[in-house]
């Protein structure tokens, strides 16, 4: 595999340094959610962020997405300082976030319309993507008429339609049943391998993180810091048949996470 951690800045897709994030509660108290985050993600790398709930892992993803402004630090995305959301970073949310009033096809077309892709090309690309994610025949269905797995596939097709070089995924398979989830993981790996996109993947599922990614970023409880970055870039037979190294890694990470959850009660 090609996804070694970045060594030169030019190779990095995302460079986060000295990132702090604080927010104000309703009672005007300042809460520090992210503290001193340093993370460099290479182009084409698949990195997961894992941590106890409330550790700020989703917030980190939203910050990289440009949706949430941060207080201190710097984020460089493909050589340029982060400035708001943009089609270079495609996002997939746990609850799909499809436009419910648009059909599958209209959802997939939307980003290309905003990018002013010529109409013929738009329609052609939408048809191809819908076919690739296995939704052929459902072009004119509304999201409410689809199952959870189909909705997430439609959301992925919508994101891929604008061809982002980075995919930001916020527990994208968290709302799906086990079988659907496993099929979706395979599809995601296939998309990643065939397109060479950089993937930043937030999850609370240890096996999923180890199975999918090349590196797993472990976070502490609030305020979220990076506790450890675990190299998971080895051959895996499958999520549930990964071999000894796989199982050992999962167990090691799981113990770290448990320690964090324990610490938060201590």
């Amino acid at each position, binding site marked *: 595999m090609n996804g070694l951690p970045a060594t030169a800045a030019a190779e990095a897709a995302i460079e986060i340094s000295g990132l702090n994030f604080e927010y104000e509660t309703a009672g005007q108290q300042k809460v520090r959610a992210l503290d001193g985050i340093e993370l460099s993600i290479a182009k084409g790398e698949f990195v997961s962020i894992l941590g106890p709930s409330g550790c700020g892992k989703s917030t980190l993803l939203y910050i990289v997405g440009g949706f949430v402004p941060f207080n201190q630090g710097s984020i460089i995305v493909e050589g340029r300082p982060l400035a708001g*959301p943009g089609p270079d*970073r495609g996002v997939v*949310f746990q609850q799909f976030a499809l*436009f419910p009033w648009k059909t599958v096809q209209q959802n997939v077309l939307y980003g290309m319309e905003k*990018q002013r892709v010529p109409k013929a090309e738009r329609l052609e690309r939408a048809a191809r993507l819908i076919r690739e994610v296995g939704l052929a025949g459902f072009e004119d269905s*509304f999201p409410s008429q689809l199952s959870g797995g189909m909705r997430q596939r439609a959301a992925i097709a*919508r994101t891929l339609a*604008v061809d982002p070089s980075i995919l930001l995924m916020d527990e994208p398979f968290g709302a799906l049943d086990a079988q659907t989830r496993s099929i979706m993981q395979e599809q995601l790996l296939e998309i990643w391998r065939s397109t060479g996109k950089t993937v930043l993947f937030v999850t609370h599922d240890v096996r999923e993180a180890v199975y999918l990614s090349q590196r797993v970023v472990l976070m502490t409880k609030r305020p979220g810091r990076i506790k450890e970055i675990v190299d998971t870039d080895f051959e895996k037979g499958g999520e549930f048949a990964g071999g000894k190294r796989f199982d050992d890694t999962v167990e090691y990470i799981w113990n770290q996470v448990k320690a964090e959850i324990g610490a938060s009660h201590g």
Partner: protein
Amino acid sequence: MARFAATYAPLAILALLWELVSRSGVVSQYALPPLSTILAAWGDLLADPDYYRNIVASVLRGLAGLSAALVLGIALGTSMATWRSVNLTIGPIVQLFYPLPKSALIPLTIIWFGIGDSSKVFLIFLGCFLPISTATFNGVRGVERTLIWSAASLGANGWARLRDVAVMAAIPDILAGVRTALALTFVLLVSSELLISNEGIGFLIRIYGDGSQYPKMFACTFTVMLLGFLADRCFRRLSGHLLRWRT
């Protein structure tokens, strides 16, 4: 067929009772003319071009006031939900004027705009504006942030995010506001025309009443009812179409 009968049987019974009560002399025929007399008077009106002219005048006033309220109400509601400063400036004014029965403004609209179309259109606009802008405000405020974020990451600029996502996601709420506004349109239209005007269906009700032509007055009241019924049907059609994505 059975459903048709079930729907219209109560109406038929009511019509029959009306006819009987009026014919029996229990109440004065002036106060409650027999239904058949009213229908005959309605038949006369249907042959009168003046009747249609007045209906058209009322319908156009209603449409104008409601449309203006729709456009400006959605714009204000969206702005208030999007920009804090707009909400802070306009919010208290909206809250102050919301409970005021807009019919109390009829004399004022007459002073400002005279007895013609503009005073009616303005009154209807005032009445419908607040329910629509409030409903839009609530709808836009409740839009899931991930929808807005998705649009942003797909390349939609601020304006496109408002138009394509915030307003679209608020449509169920906006429609609820429009439903209230539609009912208010009829109330304000007829009451302002009844009070002071020179044409319109409310005007007809008044002059037939003043002239003691009660069957025709009733026929015009029925006309308002029919218009209201048709407007509601149109609204349901439209809202069914706009919300077809909901299952």
